[in-house]
Every structure is written in structure tokens, then in C-alpha cells.
């Protein structure tokens, strides 16, 4: 076991810090050290996308990033999306369109949708599918996820 180092970063607008080994994955650091368990782990090989977060404005799979690499980073996780008890329009759209079932992949889906809509506020269906390609869902057949992202884009353009 290598020596631990202190990592400082900003998560959901709050400055946080904690210790990590060189091999600690960012997702484990966020969940176990910072205690933000909304970010989930579905594979640890970078396929499923359950651990998707926004790091310095870009969506990343946090199982593919080492905690060390997040030193000084600005991170947004699912917990940071709703403001003052009000849901983000993407969250509202997922709720209204039954865009989830078991909810395990949902934080990752929502964070990927957040990134997609930040870059492309009016995506076509094809662009939504490409934008969410890295996020597996076993429950919904993606049908209502696509519908939710379309609805979110409309809400956000208003």
C-alpha cells in the first residue's frame, strides 16, 4: 500500500478534501471519502457510465480517473444538480417521463444528459442517442430516457 496524499477539490460548489492512495479511483474517493453516494459503480471498466460526473465542465466516467488527477478540479455530481430544493429541469423531465426504473444508472444518465445539453441545447434524437451511448440502462430500453432528454431540452430552451 502506497502512502496516501491529501487531495483538495471543489465538489458541487463546496471546497472539499480527503486522503487517497495513488491507485484510488475518483469514484471511490467521491463515494467513500467524500460520502457522496449518488454516483454509482456498475462495472469499473469504463463501459456502463453509472459513475458519470462533470469534471471541469466535461463529462467523465469517474472510474476511469484517479483521485490524484482530480486535484484542484471543479466537480459536479448528481447531488449538486437540484438547487434550493428545486429540481433541475433534466431531473424534472426524467420524473415526468418515467425515464428510470431502478434508478441505479440514473445519476450517470442525468449527468451525461447535462453535458450533452450544455454543448448542444437542441439535440436531434440521433444526437441524444450518441450523447448517451456511454450510459447503460437495463430497465428502460432507453425509450423513456430519450423522451426525458428531449423534454428536458425543451424545458431548458424556454
Amino acid at each position, binding site marked *: *500500500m502506497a502512502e496516501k496524499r491529501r487531495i483538495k477539490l471543489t465538489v458541487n460548489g463546496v471546497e472539499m478534501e480527503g486522503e487517497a*492512495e495513488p*491507485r*484510488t479511483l475518483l469514484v471511490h474517493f467521491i*463515494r467513500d471519502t467524500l460520502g*457522496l*453516494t*449518488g*454516483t*454509482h*459503480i*456498475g*462495472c*469499473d*471498466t469504463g*463501459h*456502463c457510465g*453509472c459513475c458519470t460526473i462533470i469534471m471541469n465542465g466535461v463529462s467523465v466516467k469517474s472510474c476511469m480517473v484517479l483521485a490524484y488527477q482530480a486535484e484542484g478540479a471543479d466537480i459536479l*455530481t*448528481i*447531488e449538486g*444538480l*437540484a438547487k434550493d430544493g428545486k*429540481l433541475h429541469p433534466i*431531473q424534472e423531465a*426524467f*420524473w*415526468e417521463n*418515467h425515464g*428510470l*426504473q*431502478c*434508478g*441505479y*444508472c*440514473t*445519476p450517470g444518465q*442525468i449527468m451525461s444528459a447535462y453535458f450533452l445539453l450544455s454543448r448542444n441545447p437542441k439535440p436531434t*434524437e440521433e444526437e*441524444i*442517442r*450518441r450523447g*448517451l*451511448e*456511454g*450510459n*447503460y*440502462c*437495463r*430497465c*428502460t*430500453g*432507453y*425509450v*423513456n*430516457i*430519450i423522451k426525458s432528454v428531449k423534454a428536458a431540452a425543451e424545458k431548458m430552451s424556454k
Partner: protein
Amino acid sequence: MTEALLSKEIPVPRKWVGTPIKAKEFPRLITGQGRYVDDIKIPNMLYAALLRSPYAHAKIKRIDTSKAEKLPGVVAIVTQEDVLKYCKPYPQIVPPPADKLLDYCIAVDKVRFAGEPVAAVAATERAIAEDACELIEVEYEPLPPVMDAEEALKPDAPLVHEEVGTNLVWHEVFDYGDVDKAFAEADKVISLKLHHHRYGGAPTETHAVVADYDKGTGVLTIYCNNQMPMFCMALIGLSFNMPTDKIRIITPDIGGGFGSKILSYTYMMLISILAMKAGRPVKWMEDRRENLASGTHCNEATFYVEAAVKKDGTILGIKAKTLHDVGAYLRYEPVGALLWIQVSSGPYRFKNLRMDVNAIVTNKGPVAPIRGYGRIQHLWMLERTVEQVARQLGLDPIEVKLKNYVRPEEMPYVSPSGATYDSGDYPTALKKALQMINYDEWRRKQPELWRQGRFVGIGAALFQDSGTNNFAQVRLIYKNNPFSGNSRMAEMWMDEFGRIIVAVGSNPHGQCHETVVSQVVADVFGVTPDDVFVVPGFDSWVHGWTGHSGSYASQFAVSGIGAVLGAAKRLREKIATIAAHMLKAKPEDLEFKEGKVCVKGTDRCVAFWQVANLAYRNNLELPEGVEPGLRVIYTWKAPFKLPDLEKKTVNATLTYSYQAHACVVEVDPETGKVKILDYAVVDDCGVPINPHIVEGQVHGSTMNGIAAALFEEYVYSKDTGQLLASTFMDYLFPTALEIPDIKVDHMISPSPFTELGTKGVGEGSLVPLGSIAGAIEDALSPLGVVITDSHNPPERIYRMIKEAQKKRK
């Protein structure tokens, strides 16, 4: 359909049942506030990692944990020695000799599949536990693995379980009607060999356990994501030889299951042993590679089928020999080899059926009751057979299906096995699905497309989703099995503020039971779903349960809701009795509305909280003979009968939802890749409680079917027994790019056997396996290709095309 919403005694208007309200569970899940097992932290908790076998079949000669024990941070290590100290082998449900099969939560003396646990380590950090696994030395003596059901039956085949003496663990012949007469009268006999491949649930959340043994009280608390924990409770109690009052099982939010999470009791026990040995709580979260390798795949099956048919496509009878490869241990088997009995003739009306059923152990991962369990294999076999009947007679497969379907006026229909299909209109559903893909238009265009070298085909299939199972069917495996019927328990109470609280023994993982229960209860009490609190998750110390409790086998809308309705009526009756006393009226003259009980047609009312006040704090005002408190329990029992062991018939399931699927596909002859051009589903699950939730289940089971038909397979090396699909890179979980838009329409045929006319829904039986196989065969019909495998990735199709073209030259 709209009348008789609730019981005859208490007619209640339907306001919330049938309404697509937003799911009550979702606000916590979309904000990252869901609580899954991996989110649980207990003070002083350790983290576990498992060492798994690299061999498919090998003797364990020696296990040396001494180096691992010395690693700083390691607290406890469990191997076969500890397991034998704590556990007896799991009981089996098969007749002799396979009842002697020894199965534990860890490999004992021998490993029987690659990925079987051999040791478990608990340490202060997960990474340390994983490091320690690498320091454990295991000496193996590799044995030849047996990786195929037919090979396993050969006299010189290696034995997976020497204690059984054969790899054939269950064999039975079921003979219904007069099969020999049907074959004697046939114009033609069609023969086929078919293979149904291994795929699985692969939920995004893998298996997870937190075990906490309290030395003070002797209570073992197991937090887990098992979807049928009360089934496990009995197994754990028997294997640990521990009184079940000392075992508490808790399931929080669960990240998908699809049947795979029924079998996690082996992990629940292994991690519990670690916790008992370490004297500290232990968490274990399976990683994805483990999840794929450790089994919980669907039943793999080989079929030798013969169909006796008339020239006009009428099916007279079917004979099938089935070989189920159930993997290395039985666990829930051989139930999967039996469950065809729920859908014995599928949607068809032939009366003569002979099933020669064989369950066989091999050195693959053990199978689990995966979505559509045991029925999909059979329904897919029937569908392939009927399509080949049509093609070999020169008839249109869709016409032959429509001709042979059970007719709506024949419902309820008793199938050859005694399973009674409750209601439905199969021909209309199929035609509707075909209209949704513009069937006539595609058929008209098809010859021209073929001329252009475009292989476009149409497929359609209808599968039933049998729900609410009669456990007595397992007596057809072994007459002494002490199980029968089906039941659910619900507890309901009104608190002293007039709020209604419900606890149901179920373990939902996406089925939104909190929402549907609230809808049903709201209608009974004249309140809104927001006025009803459904206790989330499951806790065996909080939720009333029976041995059938859990979330499996398409049934909550029947069994769970049956219990909820029973409890609601009991509670309502008690409230009405007290309110009648307070209002000086007769209970039958009262109505429940907006949190009050009122005398009909007047403004004389008492609020729920006023009634509750008498019940809880002011009981000298209660009417004579009324017990204080407002808390009731109701246990629902399914109206089943025991099987006829002579005839081997049983009313195996209570309700029959069904889905008709139609699709258009195009096969690229250069690559063998299949593209879905259009996909439509017509679903009928009786009266839907929440159409949003039903539609979600339809989408999901359709995706599972498309994934199984075209993408996912647990491929094993025949030589080494290694699982080759060991990550999501190889086990092709489809993404949003692979799954097309799925058009859905509904029909409603209320079940005559349930109070609300509901039917269980959720498994959907993965109909795309049938529709896509049919569409590919149709697309390639100019080449005369016959689809005989349920998995059709590009490589297989490419080879079939090349072979067909070679034959034509």
C-alpha cells in the same frame, strides 16, 4: 371492467387506479438520494473481496492463507474449512440420486466452474482485501471440464458431482392428450434441433451484501439486494442451522435484478461467515467481472422437436426432448426445466404434447431464474417450430400462427398441462402489432427489395407472461417437496394524525410498488396517493412476510395488491365501525372522502384523525367490543389446487399477460449484421394500475429480448471452460444506439381471477427472441436459411448466408 373495482361489499369509485401518476420513488433516485447496499456504512465495518477459481473443474489440493493473514489490515479469511464448520449443505428439491448433491456457499474439495469462490477476505479497506486475495496460495489439480449438456450425458463424461453419480440430475416425461394418434394422423411431421443460448440479467448494480453479527443478541443482520429474501431465509436458516428469529434481512433500494438476484443467498452466507469470524460488520460489493462469471445466467437448452401437422398448417401435436444445461449447481433448478408447464402449448390450441425433460449439470456457472424463466425457452421453441411448419408447408407463418392461436371465445382456456390461460385475444393483438409496422406495405414491397439484393424480413410473435405461480408445481419435480400455493402479507395502519401507512413484503427494483400501492389504497380510503406512505424497501423485522414473499414471477399486481386490498378493507371496516359510533349512523351509510368519514348525502363527518384519536388515546369513548388501535394484517392466498401427480397436470399460474411483437429487419449480407427498421409491441396485462409503470416494463423486457436475440451471450471456451465474455467489452450490453424506438399499444382483457382484473406484468417473456428470429428467417427466405439458435450475432448470420449461397451454386 370498470365495475367491481373492489370487493362487492365495499364498492369504491376508481380514481387513482389506472392513472399514470408520477412515481413516488423517483425524487430520491433522480437526486442521488437513493440508498443502495453499497451506500450503507456501519461503524467498524470491514470490506470483503473474494478469491475465485481460475479453473472450470479442478480438485483443491491445498489452500495456504498464511501470507495473506500477515498483510496489515487483513482481519479475517474464510475458506472451505470455516464454511464446513458453520454450514450444512443446501437442501435440494430433486428426487434421488441428485438430492445427494453437495452445495455450499464456497467451493469444497473441488471447483466446478471458473469463477467459483474459493476464499473470502475481510480487511479494513477493499483494496487491502484484494491484495490479500493475491497472496492466498491455492494448489489445484485440474480436471477435464464438461461444457456441453449432450457431452455430459455420455458414459465416459467427467462427473461434475461424484456424489450424485450422474450429470443427469432430473428426468421426467410428461404426456398429454394422445400424441401417438396425432402423429399417426399427420399429413407431415416436421423435425428440428434448436438451441437456446445463455444470456442473463446483468443488472447495473451487481450483488452486494453487508453482514452484521451482533454477539450480544446473537442476531445476524444481512443487508442485501436479494429479490426473494424469504426464500433465502429458509435456506440460510437450514444451512447455518440457526433459528430464523435470529436472522434479519433488509433490502434497501435495489439496482435491478431480472431474476439474477434471487440466488445471492450464497454470498449472503459467505459474507455472514466472514462477519462472524471477524467479529465486525463486513461489506462486499461484487465487481462486474465476478458478476458475469459467477453464474446467474439463464437456462441454456437444446431441443429435439417434432411437430405433427395437417397440410393446412393445423398443428395436431408436438413432441420435444429438452436438455437444460443448468451449470455447476442446482440452486433454483431444476425449476427452470419445468416451467414450460405454465405455457405448455404457448398461445396455441393443440392438445397433444409430449415433453421429455432433462436437467443436466456442466462446468458452467449456475443458472438463475432470469426474466421469462423457463417459459422463454419453451415459447421460443414453439415459435421456431410453428414458423418452420409454415415454411415447410409453403404457407405464410403469420397465417399459420393466427390459425392455431387459442381463440378469445375459448378463454379461460385449459392448456394441455392444466395451466389455465385466464383471458386475452391473441389474434387481434398480433394483427394490431402488424398494423403498427405497416405489415401489408412491407409485404408488398418485399419482392422488389429482394430483387435489389436487400434482405428485408418481417417477423411477429406472441408470448405469454405467466404470473403469480403456484409453488405446488415443484411437486412434479419431486412429490415430497413441501411447497404449494402462493401468498403475500400486507400490514396497514392509520397513525393518530390520520395518515395511512402500508408495509408489504416485496423487494421492488424498478417496479415502483410504493406508487401502485398508494394508488390502490388511495381509492379505498378516498384520499390521494400522497396521503399514503408505503414503507420503502424490505426489512424482515418490519414487513410481514410469508415464504412466498419477494419480487419475482410477474405477480405484484395480483398477489401484492391482493394483500394490500385485503388489509385496506379490514382497516376501512374498523374505521367505519368507530366512525359510525361517533356519527350515530350505520357503517353502510358512510362514505370515505378527503380524509374524512361522512354520512352519505349529508355534511355530518368525522376526520380520520378524530377516529384515530379514539383508537389510540381516548379509548373509553370507543364503541363496546372494539379493540383499540388501527393496525391490521392481511395475508392473501392464491386460489390454486394441488397438482394431479398421476396426470402431471397443475394450474401452474393465475394470470396470463401477453405481448404481441412485430418487427421489420434488414440483414446486411456482407456483414451478417441485423438492423431493426421498425418495432411494435401490443401489450395486454389486464387492468393496468399505473400505465407509466406498465409501459416501462414493456420497454425493458423488449430491450432484454432484443439484447438476447442479437447481442448478449455468455460464451464459454469448450476446451478450457473459461468464460470468454468476461467484461462488458465482450458481453455486449446494448446501448441507446442499438435499441430502436419501440412503439407500444395496449389492450385490456381483465383477468377474471383477480379482484381488480389486474395481471402480473414485468417479465414479458422476451418476445423479440421469437419475432427477430422470424424476421431474420423471413429476410433470408430467398436463400432458404433456417434459424435454429436463439442468438444471432453477425458472425452466425454471415456464416449461414455463405453456406446457403454455396449450396445454391
